[in-house]
């Protein structure tokens, strides 16, 4: 009966992606949701499980990620996970999210900041919200930290993700917003150095006029799909910052975190045996 073939296949695929182990991880993540399984930002546990299943496959089989220092990630409480950004598509955010959600020392749901134009795109906006993505608004971050959530921040923003291959592993300017959030909400910062995402989508040029016309932050000349480069994640020790006296002091602290991330990247480059 061909009518039965499709759901059977879908069920099999679902069972393959959403393994009992994954169900256990998600179940152990402390995440208050309402009576229909949604939080105020549109996160939905069922959709998250499925997406995590797909992302976990990519994490293990495609990018063959190795993660070091996961024990540094606090098991509970407000947290900013600050990392370098690269690779045109936000694969680094996805892989970081998987590492945190499947952390053997205590899984956590980390919220990623998404571009402001996403909510206007049909389906995509809601889907990203369901997976935990939230538009990168400082008010959203403040509220989430107050609710003891973990947030992934890429302080380089599109300057980092959109840079060309020839600039790989050169940290771009860091915005200071994350440091203000950390200080105002007494949230510890866990720095992360990500190695390998630069090689997933090496861009040789940026078609800036076309990107502007399409309303995109950048449009790279790059492989159409991410290449299966090995990815190394290095998590540093958490750091807390007391309120700063001046903006100059804030910038100094931002530079401190940046230097820490640079050291974690260098460690990752040494740990990596081969690019692919």
């Amino acid at each position, binding site marked *: 009966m061909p009518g039965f073939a499709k759901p059977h296949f879908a069920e099999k695929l679902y069972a393959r992606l959403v393994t009992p182990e994954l169900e256990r991880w998600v179940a152990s993540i402390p995440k208050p949701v309402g009576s229909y399984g949604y939080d*105020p930002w549109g996160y939905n546990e069922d959709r998250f499980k499925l997406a995590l299943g797909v992302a976990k496959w990519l994490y293990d089989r495609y990018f063959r990620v190795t993660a070091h220092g996961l024990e540094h990630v606090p098991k509970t409480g407000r947290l900013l996970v600050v990392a370098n950004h690269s690779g045109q598509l936000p694969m680094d955010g996805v892989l970081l999210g998987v590492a945190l959600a499947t952390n053997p020392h205590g899984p956590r749901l980390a919220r990623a900041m998404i571009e402001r134009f996403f909510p206007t795109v*049909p389906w995509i906006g809601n889907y990203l919200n369901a997976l935990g993505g939230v538009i990168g*608004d400082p008010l959203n971050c403040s509220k989430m930290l107050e609710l003891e959530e973990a947030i992934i921040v890429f302080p380089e923003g599109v300057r980092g993700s959109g840079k060309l291959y020839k600039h790989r592993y050169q940290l771009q300017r860091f915005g200071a917003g994350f440091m203000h959030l950390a200080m105002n909400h007494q949230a510890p910062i866990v720095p992360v150095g990500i190695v390998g995402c630069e090689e997933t989508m090496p861009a040789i040029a940026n078609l800036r006029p076309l990107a502007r016309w399409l309303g995109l932050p950048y449009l790279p000349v790059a492989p159409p799909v991410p290449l299966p480069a090995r990815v190394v994640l290095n998590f540093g020790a958490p750091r807390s910052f007391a309120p700063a006296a001046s903006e100059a002091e804030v910038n100094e602290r931002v530079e401190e975190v940046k230097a820490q991330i640079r050291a974690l990247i260098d460690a990752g480059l040494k740990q990596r045996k081969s690019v692919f």
Partner: protein
Amino acid sequence: MAVASEQRKKTVLVTGAAGSLARRVIGRLHGPYRVIAVDFRQKVETDAGIPSYRVEYHKRGFEDIFLAHPIDAVIHIGRFFPHEKTRDLRYNANVLGTKHLLDLARKYGVGQVLIHSTYFVYGASPYNPALLDEDAPLKASEVTQDLVDAVEVESLANIYLWKYPQLNITILRPCNVLGPGVRNSMSLLLSRRLAPVLVGFAPLMQFLHVEDMAAAIECAFQGNRPGIYNVAPEDYVPYPQAVEECGCRKLPIPSIPPSLPRAISRTLNWNAFFPPYLVNYFKYPVILDGRLFRTTFGWKPKRTLNDIFSYYRKQKLALASP
């Protein structure tokens, strides 16, 4: 003795008495307080001991009620919904009417005014953060001129709140209020068999049962802590799911280009339940942070989302059965 205690009772004027919410508020306050019921639509039938009037809030005749009764407090619930009357008439009734009411309250030494506003004032923008605080900018008038009156009522109330502290003004901004007898756009929409849903958009929404909202008004009235408060539960559901839970069938409406759903609504005259100027509220979420109200007044909704939706489900079943 009974007469003396009756005289000591505070007198509360409740506007919009014909509506489901005001009726419930009157029901809760009648007894401990002397209640005066007024409405702009009709002279409402009330229980014995509740004087009832039909008045137009922006007309001079409204003052006669203040002359006839020593009014201590006003609960201003009544106003034209966006789907009632034309924009100008609505502006007169809602904005000028509220101004007239506040001026009368000042003139006659009213010691407490509670104003029922709406979450629409925040505006449905794709850039809205979730859990909007009371101090978030009111962007509704950016979205559409049809909500200008709602924003202006708020700014008026705000001016009076700071200028005349003796009025003890409390502004409540509830999320979608639903339940038996509620005639707002969302309630009319979920009462239908077929509910329009924008393709590709599933904004989260918050819903309150009308009885819980009446309890919230009672709490705010009795607590008398002037200020602005969001009234919303800590529970969220995407609009298409709410539509299904209410037993409606989804009617997919193309969402691109953005002018298309508005044109469809205008052409098919869906003004009452899916008006063109509310289309963005079916596209982008406007999620309120109701913590300030909950902690200030110790109020918590008693009914769940499922309780609220089950009324609409049952309503459809009752209509379907012969």
